[in-house]
C-alpha cells in the first residue's frame, strides 16, 4: 500500500460540503432571519454564493472521476490499517449513512412524540371540537388514494433490486445489462418522485376529499370526508400534522432526487466506459446510498401513510 493512504488530492468534496452548508445557512437567513424573523432578502446572496460553490465542487468531483477507467489503482482502492477489511471509500460511505440515520431518526421520533401525546381525532369527542386540538394524521387524508403510496413503495423496493442486479451485471462483465438496470432504477426513482409531487399537489388543494362531504358533519374516512380543519387543503403550514408530514417526506424526496442525479452520472459513465469486473465500486457505493433511501421509506410509509 502506498504511504499516502489513498487521498487522491481533490478539493472537490471539501468544497462541495462547505458550500452546501453556506447555501443552507443563506436559505434559512433569507427566509427566517432578520430582526423580525420573517426573512431578509439580503441573505439570498449567501444562498446563491453557496449554490454556486456547491455546483462548482460537484462538477470538479465529477470531472475527477469521469476519465477514470479503473478503481484498482492505489489512488482510490486503498485500505487503511484501522479498517483494513473494507476500502476507505466504502467505510466513508457507511460513516455518511450513519449520520443520515440520525437525520431521519430525529424527524421520525419528533413525529412519534406528537402521535403519542396528542389524541387522535374523533368528531364525537368534546375535546376535538372548537380549535381542533386533536391529531388528524396524514394517513386519513391519503387513505382514499393509498394505492399511490403502495405503488411508490413497490417502486422503491424494485429499484433496490435493480441496483443490486446492476452491480452483479457489472461484476459479470455485462455492461449492457448494467446500463439497463441502472436506467430501470432511474425510471423507478422518477416514478416515485412524480407520484409524490402529484400527491402533494392533490393534498394541498384538498382534491382527495369526497365531493359530497359536509364540513359540519366532520370526518368520515370511509366516505373520504376529512376533518373540518382541512377544509381548505392540507399543506406545510396548515397544522403540525402537515409540518411533520411534508418535512419528513420532503427530506426523503430530496434524497431520492439526489440519488437520481447520481444515477444520471452512473448511466453516462456506464455508457462511456462500461463498468466491469475490475471497476464497479462506484455502483456498489451508490447502491448503499439507494438502499438506505429505501430503508427510510420502510419507516416513512407505515407511519405517515398507513397510521
Amino acid at each position, binding site marked *: 500500500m502506498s504511504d499516502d493512504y489513498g487521498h487522491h488530492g481533490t478539493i472537490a468534496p471539501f468544497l462541495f460540503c462547505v458550500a452546501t452548508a453556506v447555501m443552507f445557512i443563506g436559505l434559512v437567513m433569507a427566509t427566517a432571519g432578520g430582526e423580525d424573523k420573517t426573512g431578509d432578502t439580503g441573505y439570498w446572496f449567501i444562498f446563491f454564493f453557496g449554490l454556486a460553490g456547491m455546483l462548482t465542487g460537484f462538477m470538479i468531483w465529477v470531472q475527477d472521476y469521469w476519465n477514470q477507467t479503473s478503481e484498482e489503482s492505489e489512488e482510490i482502492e486503498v485500505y487503511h490499517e484501522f*479498517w483494513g*477489511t*473494507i476500502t476507505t471509500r*466504502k*467505510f466513508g460511505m*457507511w*460513516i455518511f*449513512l*450513519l*449520520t443520515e*440515520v*440520525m437525520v431521519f*431518526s*430525529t424527524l*421520525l*421520533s*419528533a*413525529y*412519534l*412524540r406528537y*402521535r*403519542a*401525546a396528542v389524541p387522535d381525532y374523533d368528531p364525537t369527542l368534546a375535546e376535538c371540537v372548537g380549535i381542533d386540538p386533536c391529531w388528524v394524521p396524514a394517513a386519513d387524508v391519503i387513505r382514499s388514494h*393509498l394505492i399511490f403510496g*403502495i405503488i411508490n*413503495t*413497490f417502486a422503491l*423496493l*424494485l429499484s*433496490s*433490486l435493480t*441496483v*443490486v*442486479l446492476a452491480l*452483479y451485471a457489472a*461484476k*459479470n*462483465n455485462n455492461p449492457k445489462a448494467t446500463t439497463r438496470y441502472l436506467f430501470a432504477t432511474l425510471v423507478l426513482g422518477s416514478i416515485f418522485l412524480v407520484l409524490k409531487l402529484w400527491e402533494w399537489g392533490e393534498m394541498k388543494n384538498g382534491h382527495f376529499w369526497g365531493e359530497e362531504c359536509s364540513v359540519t358533519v366532520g370526518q368520515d374516512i370511509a366516505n373520504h370526508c376529512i376533518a373540518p380543519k382541512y377544509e381548505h387543503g392540507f399543506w406545510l403550514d396548515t397544522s403540525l400534522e402537515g409540518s411533520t408530514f411534508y418535512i419528513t417526506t420532503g427530506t426523503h424526496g430530496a434524497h431520492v432526487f439526489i440519488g437520481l442525479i447520481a444515477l444520471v452520472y452512473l448511466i453516462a459513465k456506464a455508457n462511456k466506459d462500461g463498468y466491469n*469486473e475490475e471497476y464497479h465500486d462506484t455502483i456498489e457505493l451508490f*447502491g*448503499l446510498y439507494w*438502499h*438506505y433511501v*429505501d*430503508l427510510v421509506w*420502510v*419507516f416513512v*410509509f*407505515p*407511519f405517515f401513510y*398507513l*397510521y
Partner: protein
Amino acid sequence: MSEETNSEHAHDEHHDHPFPTWVTFGHTKDPIEGFLKVFLWLVFWTLLEVGAILQEFSFGVTMIVLFGIAAIKCWFIGSFFMHMTWDPPLVTRTAAVPTFFMIVLFLAIGLTSPGAVDDLRAVCGF
C-alpha cells in the same frame, strides 16, 4: 473475458454470497435468484403491513405491528441488498451505532410520555 471465466465468476459470487435456505425456499446456485426472492419477501411483508393496518388495533399494538414489520424489512434490505451478511463485521458494528441511537430516540422520546426525557436523563446519569 471468456464465457468459462464468466461462469466461474458467477460461481464464485454464489460461494461468496450464500443465502439462508429459508430465505430462498431451498438451495439456490444463482445469486440473482436469491435477490429476487428477497424482493418477494419484501413485497409479502409490505402487503401484510397494509392488511394489518386495516384492522382496528390499539395504539400500542399498532406500533408493535408497524415497527415489527419495518424492522423485518430493514433486516432483509440491510442483510442482503446492502450485503451486510457477507461484509466484514466492521460494517455491522458501524451500522449498530446509529441503530442504537435510533432506538433510543424512538423509544425514549418518540413513544413515551414527556417525562421519559427526564427518565432518560436519570438512566444516563446526567
